[in-house]
């Protein structure tokens, strides 16, 4: 059975239906990339998966446990899903080390010494061990995002959801975050990534989902989507992105 199953998710904000029945599944160890124009419900989809917002209809399963069930232990389930935000959202009153350590200590009740060791390992993994004592405001955007990836990793999640992780970064800082993410994908982490980085999508994704107006227009391997898209909309979008962002990798 797939690690993550999303079945017919609907979500309305006021009168606007943001998600109109989205279904897909994600296999263990795979990286799936979600692309599509702004305002098509990509971020909402991620938030429905970890229940930061609750879908109006549809179901989500993580590792055979239903997240959308009325009796779901949502905090336990969220602890198994990392979430990386566009705006990093590091806890601004805590050092990088404390940011990474607080989840294991406060959510997983790990001993502080063990959690410190783990947090240092995860910071090292994203190349920021020497910044352990810095506060978020003392770090660049790229460094903050890498710390937030380390924070997600420290929970030993079953998968990580990325919500446009490089969209708030200056162009010269995007590379360092993508490098970390590529390493992660190669190490076998299961990842669901909303992004406009086509180079990343093309080189790392096992499958790409193209979403527009709250539905999945098309999904397939990068090969299929980039060279022979079935839907004309997919082709148009990729062409436009290519013009905007240049080289697609």
């Amino acid at each position, binding site marked *: 059975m797939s690690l993550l199953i999303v079945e017919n998710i609907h979500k309305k904000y006021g009168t606007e239906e943001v998600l109109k029945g989205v279904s897909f599944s994600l296999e263990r160890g795979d990286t799936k990339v979600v692309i599509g124009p702004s305002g098509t419900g990509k971020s909402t989809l991620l938030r429905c998966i970890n229940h930061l917002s609750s879908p109006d209809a549809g179901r989500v399963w993580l590792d055979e446990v239903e997240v959308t069930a009325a009796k779901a232990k949502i905090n336990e389930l969220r602890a198994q899903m990392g*979430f990386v935000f566009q705006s990093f959202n590091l806890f601004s*009153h805590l050092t990088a080390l404390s940011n990474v350590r607080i989840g294991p200590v406060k959510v997983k009740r790990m001993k502080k010494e063990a959690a410190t060791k783990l947090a240092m390992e995860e910071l090292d993994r994203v190349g920021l061990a020497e910044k352990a004592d810095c506060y978020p405001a003392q770090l660049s955007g790229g460094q903050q995002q890498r710390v937030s990836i380390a924070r997600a990793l420290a929970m030993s999640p079953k998968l990580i959801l990325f919500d446009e992780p490089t969209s708030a970064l200056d162009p010269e800082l995007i590379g360092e975050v993508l490098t970390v993410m590529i390493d992660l994908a190669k190490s076998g982490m299961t990842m669901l990534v909303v992004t406009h980085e086509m180079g990343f999508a093309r080189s790392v994704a096992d499958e790409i989902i193209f979403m527009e107006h709250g539905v999945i227009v098309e999904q397939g391997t990068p090969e299929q989507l980039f060279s022979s898209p079935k839907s004309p909309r997919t082709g148009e979008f990729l062409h436009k992105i290519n013009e905007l962002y240049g080289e697609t990798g």
Partner: protein
Amino acid sequence: MLLGGVLINLELLFALLIVGLMVGTLVALLQVYGGRFFGTLASAYAWIFRSIPAIVLLFLFYFGPSEFGANIPPFVAATLALGLRSSAYQSQIFRGALQAIPHGQILAARSMGMSRINAIYLIVIPQALRISIAGWSNEFSSVVKDTTLAYVVGLTEVLRRVRIITDRHYDLAMLAYLTVALIFLVLTYAGNHALGWLEKRLRIPGLQMVGGGTREI
């Protein structure tokens, strides 16, 4: 004699700050996170205690209970009346600070599986308290002086003692009041200085807008 009175003002100040801080924090938390029912209740509380003049509150708390045969000491009446009044003002300082914390902080905490209470307690409150210090130093200046109002319910604090002196030695009135003025100049300065020190000490490195910085979680 005056200094003995000042001690009573300081005791009252201490009691007021504790009552004000504890109740004020609770009211602010209810106002921001308490949902509709508790939120409305907290707003009503803040409105009532900020509307009624301090002296009226003092009389209500001092003479009110005796209507029902319960005599309460002036110190207790003053602590409740002025402490609850201060809590209403403090709640608004803290409410502003709570609302200034970006929502992403809570989202990040919840998304790692933290309960709502833990997210508020571990992530939001430590940041909000730091922002509050500046507003609190203002409230402190005002509470210090409020302690002299307690003389209307018979508390023998500094102003009451000045009255006792001047009743006997009218020629000393000016000197006595100037002394009281000086005492409060010093108290306010010392208090604000201490809060300024605290604000600097807790400042988060690199972050200008929000003060503070804990080393440990």
